[in-house]
């Protein structure tokens, strides 16, 4: 402020944004005015009559009155002037606010595209001082690749006078080019010359948002196509499972059937060892048949649609144990099944779970004079935990991690026949119900298998 003359400061309030909007004339300028007034008065001293004494009291009173009136008139004019001045300043401040601090860049361009005026935002957008914009062609700030777009639209604007809008990349000093939207209209300036008024806004954010929308759409498209691919793969898998079911079992049946035919028709010509070999061929073929059946069940369990209903687990266990008792007529099997066990779940899949667990229990108690197999429920942390417990050979907890793996077996095949797929199937069914399954055991002291059925609460 101190470096500027008051006149300059007043004529360009925009140059000093720190200045108050409604600031009155400062004391300095009032003193300066007074000085000037005195100087003028001194020069025109001759205008005051010499013979003041000659004035009649009446004339003097009239002159005094006249002076008073002039003084009041001047004061009123002064007040009016100050008010006008304040209004002007307020208006300039508003102009500064609206024009210079607008959220978009404003340019006034000549027909040739030279920058005649620009607001502060425009200068900020281009990363230069406003003074550096004066008389510069706007095209200087446009990325070479986008010059054509600009040229075409500007030409169109001048030729048709119709408002134009376009998007282009602008160069910013010491920064990466940015995308801007330009809107332009034609106008006449104070001198009647044709100019262009240009509004410029940074659309980086908008483009980023648009890009994000595009990416999202692309992502969704990719998810859709992946899903389709997955469905196709699933169908292929199903076709594969079908082939396995049909095509692999048929030759096995042949191996088994024709081995038996050989035994039946030519048994008399074969010695004991030859007959044993053929028995082994048959048992291997049959074992492979079981493996295929179990694998197919495992894959069916993974794909099967779960139809949750209230399942009477007690009744299910009774059905299965009756069947097991029938299959093992020579065994003394004691089944202890808790009454009233129900849960929401898929009846067919839960039957597979109980069949596998109870079947295992029967298998691993075969050395016991009396097998005791329990199916029951405990409450643990507010959750129903079902269990199948036996007094069989148990297992070493060191290997508990292997129990639920496909083809994992803890016992020799000769001792306990099986495919090593049963517990993997159990686990899959339980997981598909949103539940957990785990086991507890000790060598020689039996095993317990626990499972929950997830959100399916006991009913």
């Amino acid at each position: 402020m101190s470096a500027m003359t008051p006149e300059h400061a007043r004529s360009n309030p925009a140059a000093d944004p720190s200045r108050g909007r409604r600031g009155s004339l400062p004391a300095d300028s009032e003193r300066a005015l007074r000085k000037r007034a005195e100087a003028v008065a001194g020069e025109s001293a001759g205008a005051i009559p010499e013979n003041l004494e000659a004035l009649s009291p009446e004339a003097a009173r009239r002159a005094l009155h006249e002076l008073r009136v002039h003084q009041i008139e001047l004061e009123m004019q002064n007040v009016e002037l100050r008010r006008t001045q304040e209004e002007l300043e307020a208006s300039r401040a508003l102009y500064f606010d609206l024009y210079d601090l607008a959220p978009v860049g404003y340019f006034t361009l000549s027909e040739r595209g030279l920058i005649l005026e620009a607001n502060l935002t425009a200068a900020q957008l281009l990363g230069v001082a406003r003074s550096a914009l004066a008389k510069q062609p706007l095209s200087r700030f446009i990325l070479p690749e986008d010059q054509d777009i600009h040229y075409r639209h500007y030409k169109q604007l001048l030729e048709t006078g119709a408002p134009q809008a376009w998007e282009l990349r602008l160069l910013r000093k010491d920064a990466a080019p940015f995308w801007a939207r330009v809107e332009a209209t034609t106008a006449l300036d104070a001198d009647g010359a044709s100019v262009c008024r240009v509004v410029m806004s940074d659309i980086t954010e908008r483009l980023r948002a648009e890009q994000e929308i595009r990416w999202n759409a692309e992502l969704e498209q990719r998810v859709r196509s992946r899903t389709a691919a997955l469905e196709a793969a699933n169908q292929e898998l199903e076709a594969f499972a079908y082939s396995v079911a049909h095509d692999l079992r048929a030759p096995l049946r042949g191996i088994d059937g024709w081995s038996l035919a050989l035994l039946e028709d030519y048994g008399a010509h074969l010695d004991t060892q030859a007959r044993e070999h053929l028995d082994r061929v048959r048992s291997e073929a049959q074992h492979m048949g079981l493996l295929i059946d179990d694998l197919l069940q495992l894959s069916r369990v993974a794909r099967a649609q779960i139809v949750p209903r209230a399942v009477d687990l007690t009744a299910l266990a009774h059905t299965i144990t009756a069947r097991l008792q029938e299959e093992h007529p020579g065994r003394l099997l004691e089944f202890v099944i808790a009454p009233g066990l129900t849960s929401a779940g898929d009846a067919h899949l839960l039957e597979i779970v109980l069949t596998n667990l109870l079947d295992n229990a029967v298998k691993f108690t075969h050395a016991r004079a009396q097998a005791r197999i329990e199916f029951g429920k405990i409450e643990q942390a507010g959750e129903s935990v079902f269990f199948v417990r036996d007094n069989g050979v148990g297992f070493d907890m060191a290997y508990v991690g292997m129990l639920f793996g496909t083809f994992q077996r803890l016992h020799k095949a000769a001792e306990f026949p099986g495919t090593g797929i049963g517990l993997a199937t159990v686990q899959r069914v339980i997981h598909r119900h949103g539940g957990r399954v785990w086991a507890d055991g000790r060598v020689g002291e039996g095993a317990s298998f626990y499972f929950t059925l997830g959100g399916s609460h006991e009913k």
Partner: protein
Amino acid sequence: MKSRTILLIEDNPSDVGLTQRALQKAHILNNLVVASDGQEALDYLFGTGGYAGRDISDLPILTLLDMKLPKVPGLEVLRRIRAEACTHRMPVVILTSSKQEQDMAVAYDLGVNSYIHKPVDFQQFAEAVQQLGLYWLVLNQSPPRAVERMNPGWSKIA
């Protein structure tokens, strides 16, 4: 009286042999006709192709149908059998390796009489065939001939 035919629709020669063996073991001595694909089976039943001129009123007492067949698949053969008036009451038993649930559901929807899964163990298979023979050839009352019932002139002939 000439025993009525059993029609076996099966493309695998090993399975044909095993089925024949199982039938013999069960003392089922009916004449066995083997069709090795779906089209041949339809030709036999409807007197077309290689079986042109065959007396098609001579229906098999039992048809054993495999699911996976060359040319015309098993389910399609079943559908055609059920669609034709002359064969639509004929007993058809599916004898297959497939345990696919959807196959089973479709087969029952198409009106199959039984769906039997062929076990790998031949002894189990032989038992199944024996029971099958006992049931369909001895215990079961054959359905009235669809053709005769539907023929409007039948009462006059009688």
